[in-house]
């Protein structure tokens, strides 16, 4: 039996072989490395996303902690940033005394994270109860104020004259605001 292959068939076969080679070369040289790159990128994305999720959950935890801490200590935080107003302080606490006067605030002294202002106080009281009430009220005032030694009590007719020093504490950032003002 005679097998005859036409010239056209040879062309077609040759072209098909060339094309097959091109396809293989393209697949192995370009497509497969690109697929690998894609797979690596996908894996990397998942890894980074997991890592970011962990950071996000840590962020949420810290954020909630800060939020709760701020809510629980609203008064304390506000008290450290409120600028001491001697007139307001006198107005609020004068009710415990017959007479109540404050000296000017001194220049602040840095004590770690806080600036401390000193203010001298002179009062006249009917009975020590006024002084006790003042010490209770001072813990609820707009600023963080401590009453310090020395404390001097002296009888003055039917009243008691007292003088003492108070320390007003402010967070250091307040100092910057005050100096700017």
């Amino acid at each position: 039996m005679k097998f005859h292959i036409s010239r056209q068939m040879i062309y077609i076969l040759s072209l098909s072989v060339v094309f097959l080679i091109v396809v293989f070369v393209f697949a192995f040289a370009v497509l497969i490395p690109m697929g690998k790159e894609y797979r690596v990128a996908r894996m990397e994305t998942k890894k980074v996303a997991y890592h970011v999720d962990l950071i996000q959950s840590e962020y949420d935890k810290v954020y909630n902690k800060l939020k709760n801490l701020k809510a629980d200590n609203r008064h304390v935080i506000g008290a450290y940033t409120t600028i001491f107003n001697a007139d307001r302080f006198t107005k609020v606490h004068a009710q415990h005394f017959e007479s109540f006067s404050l000296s000017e605030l001194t220049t602040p002294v840095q004590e770690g994270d806080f600036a401390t202002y000193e203010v001298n106080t002179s009062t006249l009281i009917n009975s020590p109860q006024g002084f006790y009430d003042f010490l209770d009220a001072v813990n609820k005032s707009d600023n963080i104020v401590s009453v310090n030694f020395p404390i001097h009590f002296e009888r003055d007719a039917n009243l008691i004259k007292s003088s003492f020093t108070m320390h007003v504490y402010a967070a250091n950032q307040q100092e910057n605001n005050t100096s700017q003002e």
Partner: protein
Amino acid sequence: MRNSFIKPRVKTLISPEFKLLFFFFSITLGMLLTSYAFLKIKAVMYETNIAELQAKGESLKTDIISMNGEIAFIEIEKQHAEGVYTSNTVLKESIHNLFDLVPQKITLSKADLKEDELVLYGVTPSKEVYEFLLLAPLRSIFHRSYTSYYAMDNGWYSFVSKNYLDRELAVK
């Protein structure tokens, strides 16, 4: 005049077999290029996504550090405020106790309170009254107590009582 009995065949540059072959070649090439484009675009998208996620992670980390700083500072403020409030309350209790200590028979005219020192000025009907009713409790609180008496015209005594706390002994 016709030299052939058949109708001449129209000759084209590319035969139908080649056309079919090129059609399949183009489809195959198209699929390959589409796959390549798909992979390339997806890889670029993932890389962009990674960069965005990394930037977000860094920003979250910075925020966490800043919030932790804020938390630490609030804790310090809270602790400091509690210390101040406690010291005011302790001061109130100390003064309360001091005034409760003074018996009805003794009248104080002046009191100086310092950190480790208490000086009382007053009037007592007799030295014994002072010693039994005021000096005894003062001695139980302070490490050293010194009293000076001054006789008055009405037979009473004015006194100056100096009381000291020794810090070293207090620590022990």
